[in-house]
């Protein structure tokens, strides 16, 4: 069997048989402890500085952000953004309870469907799980209430993110996912898909010159909800 052929060939190269039990146990304890390594100093800042760094970095990567005082302000911010982009007031929305409970009734001109993304979608509204200040990156783990296709298919991808969900480094975002997520299939925390998104889609394949909007969204916009008093600078 190919599995044994490969494993035996590896062991032959390493000049040993299968790992002895004590070394197996050492690997298992390393996996269980999943130690962190060097974490760059750049994101070790007070909350306000961390959120500001998150926004600065995402803008550096050609995404845009708007801060709103609370969740109730999201529909108006979204309506304004769509109008400013010359997009119709229609969007596909993640079927997430936090988005469903927004005061949409005050904005009857906005129409939306809570569903996955489709090939003809012009705009989507996604729920952000975490923001990573280090590089201005969004963490978007898949779930029934957070379909992956909403991150990929629309021309404009809009993400609602709480300021309290902004962390400094990648490791902190994984720690947050380890604590908050449960996958019924595996019993672990890892969902089927976790996307780390830093800016809109792009390509430099034509003459090493950057063009935005290759196959994914041409625009990425974050509506940042200031729910964290300490993050207000």
């Amino acid at each position, binding site marked *: 069997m190919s599995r044994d*052929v490969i494993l035996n060939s590896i062991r032959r190269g390493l000049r040993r048989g299968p790992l002895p039990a004590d070394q197996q146990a050492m690997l298992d304890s390393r996996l269980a402890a999943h130690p962190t390594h060097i974490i760059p100093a750049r994101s070790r800042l007070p909350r306000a500085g961390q959120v500001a760094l998150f926004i600065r970095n995402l803008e550096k990567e050609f995404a845009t952000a708007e801060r709103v005082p609370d969740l109730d302000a999201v529909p108006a911010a979204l309506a304004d953004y769509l109008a400013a982009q010359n997009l119709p007031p229609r969007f596909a929305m993640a079927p997430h309870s936090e988005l469903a409970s927004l005061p949409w009734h005050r904005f009857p001109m906005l129409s939306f469907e809570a569903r996955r993304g489709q090939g003809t979608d012009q705009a989507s509204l996604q729920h952000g799980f975490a923001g990573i200040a280090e590089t201005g990156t969004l963490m978007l783990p898949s779930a029934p209430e957070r379909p992956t296709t909403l991150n990929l298919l629309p021309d404009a991808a809009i993400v609602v993110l709480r300021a309290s969900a902004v962390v400094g480094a990648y490791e902190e975002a994984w720690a947050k996912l380890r604590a908050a997520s449960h996958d019924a299939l595996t019993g672990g925390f890892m969902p089927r898909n976790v996307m780390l*998104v830093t800016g809109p*889609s792009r390509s430099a394949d034509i003459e090493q010159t950057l063009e935005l*909007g290759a196959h994914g969204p041409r625009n990425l916009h974050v509506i940042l909800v200031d729910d964290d008093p300490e993050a207000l600078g």
Partner: protein
Amino acid sequence: MQVHSPRFKERASAALADAPLQKALTRFRDGFQAKRAAAVAGLPEFEALRDVARDIKNHTLANLDAYLERYADKVERAGGVVHWCSTADDARAAVLKICQDAGARTVTKGKSMISEELGINAHLEAHGMEPVETDLGEYILQVRDEPPSHIIAPAFHLNREDWEASFRKSHADLPADRQFHERRDILTEARTRLRDKFLTADVGITGANFLIAETGTSVIVTNEGNGDLTQTLPRVHIVLASIEKMVPTLEDACVFMRLLARSATGQDLSVYTTFSTGARRAEDLDGPAEYHVVLIDNGRSGMLGTEFQDMLRCIRCAACMNHCPVYGAIGGHAYGWVYPGPMGAVLTPTLQGVDKAGHLPNASTFCGRCESVCPVKIPLPSLMRHWREREFERHLQPPVMRRAMGLWGWFAKRPTMYRLATRLGAGTLKLLGRGRGAFHALPFAGGWTAGRDLPVPEGRTFMAEYARRQRAK
């Protein structure tokens, strides 16, 4: 993919005389090196992270069997299937079987160098399926039926006019008088064309930048989002991954996330870094119903325990070729197979045989820039030297070269004779070169001077100058 490496010398000469390629290379050299330097300058921890990354890979390779078993177990628990393939034939057969079982007609593909190594496209085409490359650079190469010339910028050798001409020829159903005013118009045409393929494909094939043992996860890194569309929309997702892609945990992967894009394109992080673990969950609204990992050895395990083991740390960032003066002069096609530049000069003889690829490790001045930028600190010049030694031991070089090496060796072992000979040589060349800065041609060295000039020596040898300065102290 056919191996053209034995014809390296002719191909390199042709590349030096290829004006459009030289134009593309000028653009290429300036871009990548400056961008990497800026990105590295922005992260003070970069150098320390290189050491950590090297150590993580070394630890993983020393325990590769155990980590692969743990990884495979986790993939299966997440509803995925692992296909262990020790040879390229096994891997091609596994991919074909999965596609046939899925009743596939159209297969979309994310950029994957291992797919090039295995020749997946030709194999699927031979069995009546349509593979569609979706990375913009790979797409134009598929249209033109060319191999990639770089591992992360596969079509850098093409100029804008090549893109336009190829799109006009290949997209013949579109109006012939349409204009490509900007690069964006080329991109938009490809986007529209490929959007339809993404939505109708039956199977999506991607590579993997990393495999994570802790969670049974495959990771891809892209800027276009094509890899994500490829792995999200079709009913079946196939991951092609060679065994050395393994890292133990997500925290280990974080170290490589900080190194990969900075070393490659000079970005802090690529736009999409995506972690896939198994098939669609019961309540999910999207994602593939089947998730297969084709786990490929194809010569890697044979490198363990040899002087080439360090090469298995490679994360395919392309920093070595982006900083190589030889690659920068001739581009990637001259190397004749999937992997060009310094990493290819080490890997190609390993995977294809030094008899076929012996020229590649010789095409280096050992300037050491590749090693100095390698994010996992692979001693590329030393590994190339190992190949030269093996080539010499196996008597693979031409007799003229062996005789010349023997002659040089005779002098080198006799310092007095060596110094006399070099003093005579330097003096003669100085005399011959009076009044000019460099020789454009020299008798018996036409092959060497065809592509470069020899500066006229100052007249004194290195040893003479060294002795003079020591005395002057």
